């Protein structure tokens, strides 16, 4: 394994990637066999807006899902120091005012995040948005994009719908809309960790629906990457 050499010597790789990235990549060496009993990271980010170039991540929240269990101790929540904060984008999530929270630099946050997720598959709601946001942040520090397998609760929900002329399919289903449909409490909505928790429950409920519909769920076919 090429990376093991660098890992042992604790030097930077020739491409000047930081050590945590090297360690992160090293975990993707072998094929993963994934089923519902596997570990999943359920992720949500709060951002200053929807523009990948100009907007920034305010907070990353994630929970670890394993065999239907969410371990609170093993959840992840980090607030980012806003260096390029644009005062025109007034606080949406109330995060900016919470100055008391421990905050990390973008680089620190990404490092901790990658250490946390390792090679675990990621679940999110409209996953590509969160992942693109994180990848943009990574690239600002000269780091390549995430390598984890990705699942999207919106895509899964669409798959779970009956084929019926009476059902209108939409492209977008908001987290609020689906939380209502599946009777999930919306407390802590619009905090990254709160949304990650809601998404985790949503995933479990949609999985159940999918299983009822198709009998067997093969994750390989559900990944969006």
């Amino acid at each position, binding site marked *: 394994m090429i990376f093991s050499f660098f890992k042992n010597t604790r030097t930077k790789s020739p491409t000047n990637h930081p050590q945590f990235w090297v360690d992160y990549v090293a975990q993707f060496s072998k094929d993963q066999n994934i089923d519902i009993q596997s570990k999943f990271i359920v992720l949500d980010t709060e951002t200053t807006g929807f523009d990948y170039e100009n907007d920034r991540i305010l907070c990353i*929240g994630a*929970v670890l899902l394993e065999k*239907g*269990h*969410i*371990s*609170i*101790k093993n*959840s992840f*929540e980090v607030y980012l120091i806003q260096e390029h904060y644009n005062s025109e984008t007034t606080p949406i999530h109330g995060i900016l005012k919470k100055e008391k929270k421990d905050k990390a630099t973008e680089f620190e946050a990404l490092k901790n995040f990658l250490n946390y997720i390792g090679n675990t598959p990621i679940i999110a709601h409209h996953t590509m948005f969160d992942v693109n946001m994180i990848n943009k942040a990574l690239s600002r520090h000269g780091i390549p994009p995430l390598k984890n397998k990705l699942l999207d609760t919106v895509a899964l929900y669409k798959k779970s*719908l*009956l084929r*019926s*002329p*009476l*059902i*209108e399919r939409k492209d977008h289903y908001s987290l609020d809309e689906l939380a*209502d*449909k599946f*009777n999930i*409490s919306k*407390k*802590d909505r619009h*905090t990254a*960790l*709160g949304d990650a*928790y809601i998404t985790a*429950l949503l995933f*479990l*409920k949609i999985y*159940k629906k999918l*299983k*009822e*519909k*198709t*009998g*067997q769920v093969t994750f390989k076919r559900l990944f969006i990457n």
Partner: protein
Amino acid sequence: MKNTISHRVADFLKGFPPFNMLSIEVLEDIAVEINIQYLDKDGLVFKEGDNPHSNFYVVHKGAIALRKAPQNEMVDLCDEGDIFGLRPLMAQENYKMEAKAYEETILYCIPIEVFKPYALKNKSIGNFLLESFASNTRNPYAKKHRGKLYGETSGEENEAIVPLFDVQQVRWSKNIISCETSTAITELANAMKLNKIGAILVLKNKLPIGIITDKDLRNKIGTGEIPISGTAIEIMSSPVITYGEELTVTQAQMGMMASGVSHLCITKDGTPHTKAVGIVSKHDIMLSVGNNPSVLIKAIQRATKTKEIKRIRLSILKLLRGYLQQGIPMTITSKIISELNNACTKQVIELNLKKMETPPPCSFVWLAIGSQGRNEQLLQTDQDNAIIFEKESNGDGEPHKSYFLKLAQKINKGLMKIGYEYCPADMMASNPKWCLDLDSWKKNVSYWISNPGKNEVLLSSIFFDFNAVYGNSKLSDELSDVIFETLKRFPVFTTHLASGALQSPPPSGFFRSFLVEHDGANKDNFDLKRRTLMPLTDAARVLILSHFIKGINNTAARFEKLATLEPNNKELYLSCSYATKALLKFRTKQGILHHDSGRYLDLNSLSKEERVKLKRTFKTIKEIQELINIRFKVSQLL
């Protein structure tokens, strides 16, 4: 690491004993260590005899059924905030019962190692746990009946229908409506009317000194003995019979009999010298018995929260099970249970109407469609419903639709909370397509009938069995008239409907040729609904529509009506009616057995006799389908 989720968990726990005896800081520390577990319906937490887990459980959402061998009798149903699985951990013994999710459930798993130090350190927690273990109820403070956690299993099968209720604690109402000795009679009578109660407590310095019941109003005011301008003290019955909080059903009954009263007052220490905390009426006791439809109806109508209705629904289920076991005829059973189910829906609508900011801008009617519309829904399945509102707008440009959609969303959610799952095909009043003004509905049904494509026939077959559950039924009557007028003009629709009724032929026989379904989860089971009930329902619908008979929705009743209309086919129709009822019974029994909709029949669970019965219905279905094929010349469509 404290975070958003641990805050939320701590916040939840602090509302329930024994956690409410801990400071929020301590709860936050405990919360960090908690695992959150999600369970499907029937998901197993632990089996009887399993080694104790390293954590005990608190129900956050949903419900957990605790069952005990050998009869698998449910000894307890834990819902939000209830603790279970703690005693084996404390006593270091194996689990004495099985814990399974009764419905979709979220659990908080609290590691015993984290909790134990607090339980040992904090005396009140220790006492709470001791009491709850000793009193055999999970929560000695619980006001409602909690079942016997370590109940000896009852000997006879039949006893299971009515569980031993006499040593249960009475569930009493904590919401005390009271008045002062000087309160005017009209005022207190109004308070009773407003709260729909039969008795009001008279307090002096917060202590109960008398009670006024409907009977007092009748005997003392109605007779003219005391003028209506009087005050409470003149008509109250005194003293009040008081009991302590641990009153059991038997004690309450004895107490009422002995003193000839219909209401007992619960006080802090059981004497009239402490604060009143609740009232028990005969009605409450009857409710504990839970097998009387008229009591249940009253309870439903008095419910002020959706959650209360959900609890009453458990009693309805118990009643249904009793009826089935006692062999009460299906016609009666389905009538009573449907009535109760409809009452629940009505109450949910009432409650949600109150939640709207304004009253409805015009009259409307709530329709149950599909099986509920046919009064064939004994168990909770999916909800199918629609709204007709009187007119599009009041001419002020403000369309009514948004109001009714908002209302429907609330009602659909309320129905989901009491156990009717959302319709997977979204045939619900909150769907803009199923929430329309009368004129739009008329246009819709006329279009379906005059352009009978596949979807139109499908939609009609679901919608045409509507039943007005709540509101202005003139609207639905008017729509029925339009349906029948249009049917007369487009007879070809009936042929299409008939063709739809022949879509799924019954299986021809058993096992070798028995068609089992191949769709995943239910692949070893037989789809009772699609293969037997639906063909009969569809057949009854097309036949009754072809006779232009309106107002009979129930499939069995339709066949009975057909038997009188066509004497030459009387025998076939009657056997169809019989088959429908028998199949419905099969379905209901299966549903109770598996705590689901009963749609899929577990073949192995059938006795020989039941198999023969089932097979006989196949033959009947085949015959009725042949009749339809010939009468409506369906083959010409092809």
